[in-house]
């Protein structure tokens, strides 16, 4: 017990000695700390941005709606995105077949997407028009904050009605409630019937910069370059009851479509089914890689900071050779001398790490405000940063400390 108290007291003394030594060369200590500070700052910020990207992706996937599959008429490619020539056909009747024959399917919403120009009262906006059915809203969790969504009768009558996103509303209407207002979409007059619930933006992708019109109206009134036949669609949204049917649905949809398009055995399926579950998984992987790359780059600056620590500790050992000799003469063991310099390096690093952490927190807060990008720094990240700085100190302070402890007492004492 006494021995333990003595050991603890010894470390306390080492910390005190370290602070005295660091104060003695204050400017040098500050400059050395700066290296670790910048290193920890960049590592923490990289972790925070990576975390933010993950949060963003999770949020974005939540906005897609849960238990949903997207079917596009393109074969899956192992390497890279689909090529323009890959695009096959997909029709509303395929959607109806899926709704009828695939177990667990709640609803299918066909979609045609095209770029459009909106004009009203001298203002204009370019955006993406989604032509779909009333099912689109329920499958993808897309509601209206004002007015109403498109209905079955809107689709049936190819009504010239439009539900606009918040960003589009902001561009076209100032101080005016858009509901009931007339807009011309690609020169065709439409009535605004609703305002889409805002879903914010994720990773610079504005979810509110779109409009929804009945698929029938879009087909008849707005030119669609993507469609080849009368009931061709860009893609299908398929809503499932639960996760289990969603997982099985992937295969079911593919085999159904293969049968409908008479794709012979051995040929690749000209359709891709992406489920929200898969999207979440791949996006998670991508953001993890993104984060790892960021942290790896930031770690280089931490390494440089550590080398700075090693350099300055070597200088410190050389300058204080006589002190080392004296301490040995007074009874310091090699381990006492080693610990003294280790603690000094660790204190230097932990102070640098602490300041770096604070700066990273400030930068993350500013980033969050200015760029509207979450960069959360958790308690675990903070503690990890401090612990990591200490480890940097021990690793890079280790060599100088061991060198100091190996000095011969008499030679150290004689040095000038």
């Amino acid at each position, binding site marked *: 017990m006494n021995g333990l108290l003595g050991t603890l007291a010894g470390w306390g003394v080492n910390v005190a000695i370290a602070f005295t030594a660091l104060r003695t060369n204050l400017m040098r200590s500050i400059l050395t700390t700066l290296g670790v500070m910048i290193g920890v700052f960049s590592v923490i910020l990289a972790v925070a941005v990576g975390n933010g990207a993950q949060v963003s992706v999770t949020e974005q996937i939540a906005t897609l709606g849960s238990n949903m599959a997207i079917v596009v008429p393109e074969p899956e490619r192992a390497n890279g995105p689909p090529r323009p020539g890959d695009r096959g056909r997909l029709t509303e009747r395929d959607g109806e077949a899926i709704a009828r024959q695939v177990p667990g399917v709640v609803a299918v919403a066909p979609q045609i997407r095209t770029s459009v120009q909106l004009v009203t009262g001298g203002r204009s906006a370019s955006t993406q028009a989604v032509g779909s059915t009333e099912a689109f809203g329920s499958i993808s969790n897309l509601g209206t904050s004002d007015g109403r969504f498109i209905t079955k009768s809107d689709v049936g009558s190819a009504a010239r009605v439009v539900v606009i996103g918040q960003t589009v509303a902001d561009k076209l209407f100032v101080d005016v409630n858009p509901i009931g207002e007339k807009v011309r979409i690609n020169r065709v007059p439409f009535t605004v019937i609703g305002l889409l619930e805002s879903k914010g933006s994720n990773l610079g992708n504005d979810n509110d910069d779109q409009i929804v019109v009945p698929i029938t109206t879009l087909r008849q009134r707005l030119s669609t370059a993507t469609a080849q036949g009368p009931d061709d669609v860009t893609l299908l949204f398929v809503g499932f009851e639960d996760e289990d049917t969603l997982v099985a649905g992937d295969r079911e949809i593919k085999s159904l479509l293969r049968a409908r398009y008479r794709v012979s055995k051995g040929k690749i399926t000209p359709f891709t089914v992406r489920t929200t579950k898969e999207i979440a998984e791949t996006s998670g992987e991508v953001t993890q890689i993104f984060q790892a790359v960021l942290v790896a780059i930031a770690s280089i600056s931490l390494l440089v900071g550590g080398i700075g620590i090693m350099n300055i500790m070597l200088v410190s050992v050389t300058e204080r050779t006589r002190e080392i000799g004296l301490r040995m003469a*007074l*009874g310091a*063991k090699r381990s006492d001398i080693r610990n003294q310099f280790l603690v000094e390096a660790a204190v230097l690093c932990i102070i640098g790490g602490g300041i770096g952490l604070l700066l990273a927190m400030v930068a993350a807060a500013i980033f969050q405000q200015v760029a509207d990008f979450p960069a959360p720094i958790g308690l675990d990240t903070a503690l990890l940063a401090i612990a990591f700085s200490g480890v940097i100190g021990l690793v890079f302070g280790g060599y100088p400390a061991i060198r100091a402890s190996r000095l011969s007492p008499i030679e150290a004492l004689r040095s000038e």
Partner: protein
Amino acid sequence: MRTKMTAPLLETQDLIKNYVIGGEMVHAVNGVSLRIDQGEFVAIMGASGSGKSTFMNMIGCLDVPTSGVLRLDGIDTRTLNSDELAEIRNRKIGFVFQQFNLLARTSALDNVAVPLIYAGVGPAERRQRAQARLEAMGLGNRLLNTPAKLSGGQQQRVAIARALVTNPLILLADEPTGALDTQTSLDIMGIFQKLNDEGITLVVVTHEPDIAEYAARRIVFRDGKVIEDAAVTSRRRAEPA
């Protein structure tokens, strides 16, 4: 004093220390056999290069002999490893240096407490023992002064307090008055005489014959060998300031 029937505190037999400097062998200490008993006050004299400092460093366990026997308090120090030697230096030996060797920017109290840190003594007891030693040196009103705020004589007294704080068996002083003026030198020798009267064994290395006359026994080195070893006949007394 030498005739007292006590076990030798320090004993050397044919002690040899060789250095190789610039490819040439230097016989710094070349076969020294002597004993120092408890309670003695020894002055070691000799010109620079005579081997007196090398001898001192070896008996202080700061340097290791090339060959021969070196026994301190009955322990053959040549068989000890570096940690055991550190412990001997800490518990059994007190050092006083020519240049005082106090830690800069560190109070007198903290300087005196340094050996106690390495002895594993807790903070409260360290403080208390360091303070008692400084008060005994007449520095009770200088506890928190740093070396820069102390005179040379005061600094050397802090160093003596530090050397004594672990209650060592022997106090080794290497040119303790070398950096001090005449009067301050006398003060320091007076302190040594008083300590010796209290029973502390002292070995003082000096090249000044006057200083050596405050000791009880004089050993003279030349070319690594002892050429004279006798009691001081005309011993001087100094009253500590």
